[in-house]
């Protein structure tokens, strides 16, 4: 691929030899040159990768907490309404509203809703499922899930393509290519 691609909606993809080189290059690109919206790609989470990208703390725990509280409230309200109000069942004169007997199901629904929160929260925050992404225009990028370490830098109007290529190469990139998002 040539570097003279002038499409604005495009990404630079740089491969690095080791995870350490990738993390280091990411941090320098962001701190030294001020690039935003970059992303790293690796087969497993990079140590220090989130910090290098400058990501804020994940919102997944809050979504999980919301799910847990929803589950708890749902369970207690459900059992109190169904067994206490709408269809009271008298078993040997035992209390109709019986909180201790509600504990197991309340616990289970709390966990269930929290797990749904985590799962769908994870997908939502990551914008998955995503059947197509322009980075796959580059066939070599497929190593990102097996043994490659990649960095993507979105093209900005103000910076020349050659400059970005040079910067990436000086930080240790073994190959740099440009992919476009035209097909998206």
């Amino acid at each position, binding site marked *: 691929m040539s570097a003279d691609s002038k499409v604005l909606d495009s990404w630079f993809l740089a491969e690095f030899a080791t995870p350490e080189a990738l993390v280091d290059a990411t941090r320098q690109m962001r701190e030294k040159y001020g690039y935003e919206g970059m992303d790293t790609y690796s087969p497993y989470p990079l140590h220090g990768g989130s910090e290098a990208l400058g*990501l804020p703390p*994940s919102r997944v725990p809050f979504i999980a907490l919301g799910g847990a509280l929803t589950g708890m409230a749902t369970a207690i309200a459900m059992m109190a309404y169904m067994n206490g109000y709408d269809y009271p069942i008298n078993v040997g004169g035992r209390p109709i509203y*019986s909180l201790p007997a509600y504990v197991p*199901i309340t616990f289970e629904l709390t966990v269930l809703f929290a797990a749904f929160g985590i799962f769908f929260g994870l997908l939502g925050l990551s914008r998955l499922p995503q059947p197509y992404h322009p980075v796959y225009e580059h066939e070599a990028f497929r190593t990102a899930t097996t043994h490659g370490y990649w960095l993507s830098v979105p093209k900005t109007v103000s910076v020349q393509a050659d400059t970005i290529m040079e910067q990436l190469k000086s930080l240790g990139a073994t190959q740099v290519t440009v992919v476009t998002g035209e097909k998206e």
Partner: protein
Amino acid sequence: MAETAATHLPPGVDPLEPRMLVAPHHDDASLNETLLDHVWRKPGKGWFLLFGIALVGLGMFLVAVTMTLARGIGVWGNNQPNGWAFDIVNFVWWVGIGHAGTLISAILLLFQQKWRTSINRFAEAMTIFAVICAGQFPLLHTGRPWFAFWLLPYPSTLGAWPQFRSPLDWDVFAVSTYFTVSLLFWYVGLIPDLAALRDSSPGKIQRVVYGLFSLGWRGSGRHWHNYKIGYLLLAGLSTPLVLSVHTIVSFDFATGLIPGWHATIFPPYFVAGAVFSGFAMVITLIVPARKYLNLRDVITDRHLENMNKVILATGLIVSYGYMMEHFIAWYSGSEYEIWTFYVNRARGPYWQVYWLMIACNVITPNIFWFRKCRTSIPIMWVASIVVNIGMWCERFIIIVTSLTQDFLPSSWDLYSPTWVDWCLYIGTLGLFSTLFLLFLKFVPAVAISEVKELQLELKHAAHHAAHGHDTHGAH
């Protein structure tokens, strides 16, 4: 099985230092090759042979289910007073087996036990399939499984709601939640590996199919950022969940008044028994699998030894449970309890099952005090099967001896299983094996991304301990 584990450390090695978790000669690319290999390779004769046997078992299951549905559960050996028998024995046994999977994945992840990474995928798959098998029994036991949805709170035209103060309804919520959360946990752990499969596919069909299941995962740092915390939280949720599920299963008994059931020791004792049988099942499955799938580099002897230590520990807890049951029966002074524990179980009509249980569950695990037994592949494999038989006997003893002879001698009756009962039980073994073999064919048996991460950490640790030994590293 001529293979034996290396038991001797090289000279000069500190015996307190942990031994290797991943064979040191691997890098990311070679790990891919080793760990993805069994998915891309054509399955061998051995796989087809096992799959054939599993399908025979599955056929037996279908025959037994058809018989049960066509004729009603009268074809089982259940009678009055033995309303619960083989079906509930098998249900509790299978749920228990599932527990090791969650424990390995969740508790060991929370405790940052690095040896877990190689076996968690395996163990979680085992959990899911075991819970599927477990679920068949209560469903069939309702007699009319097509009305099983009556157990769920749905706006029914009957105008009735389930009875939420009943432990049987707690079971419905506990087991279905357990299954759902285990499945989510397993799937979330699988996504990066499914993406790796997609990206190393030899053909277009595989790429599309694995592509669908991997949801477009591309190892993005922004995704990993959420993924790491999400996975950890799911593990955190699974940990109390696994304890609650078997606790609730034990409530089915403990809230009953039958002598032999009405015991406060039941929840912890059932959970320990579940871990005991679950880890034994992991050993039973992993020993042949690591051999035939060439996974010995990632499922090392240290893994097996650690699991045997867990079997020993939980076996001792189970033994303590038996002791307490007997002690409380004597201490309570209740003649019914004393009859059940000291006369009926040990010397009654099912005394063989009782003593088999003692031999399997109390005596067998103690061989793991000896390092030689903990590290010998043939010994641990046989012992793990013995433990599973023992735990099945335990559930049989708890349920059947308590029901056959309770308070009123005039209502006593013996229980014996019919061929349908046996077919159903062996059939679920076939169902389990079928699912497991399909899993081994289509999905990496080891969590590849986690092993790679561990590999990197080990390299770093080895680098820091510059004067150390190259096979060491993990703390």
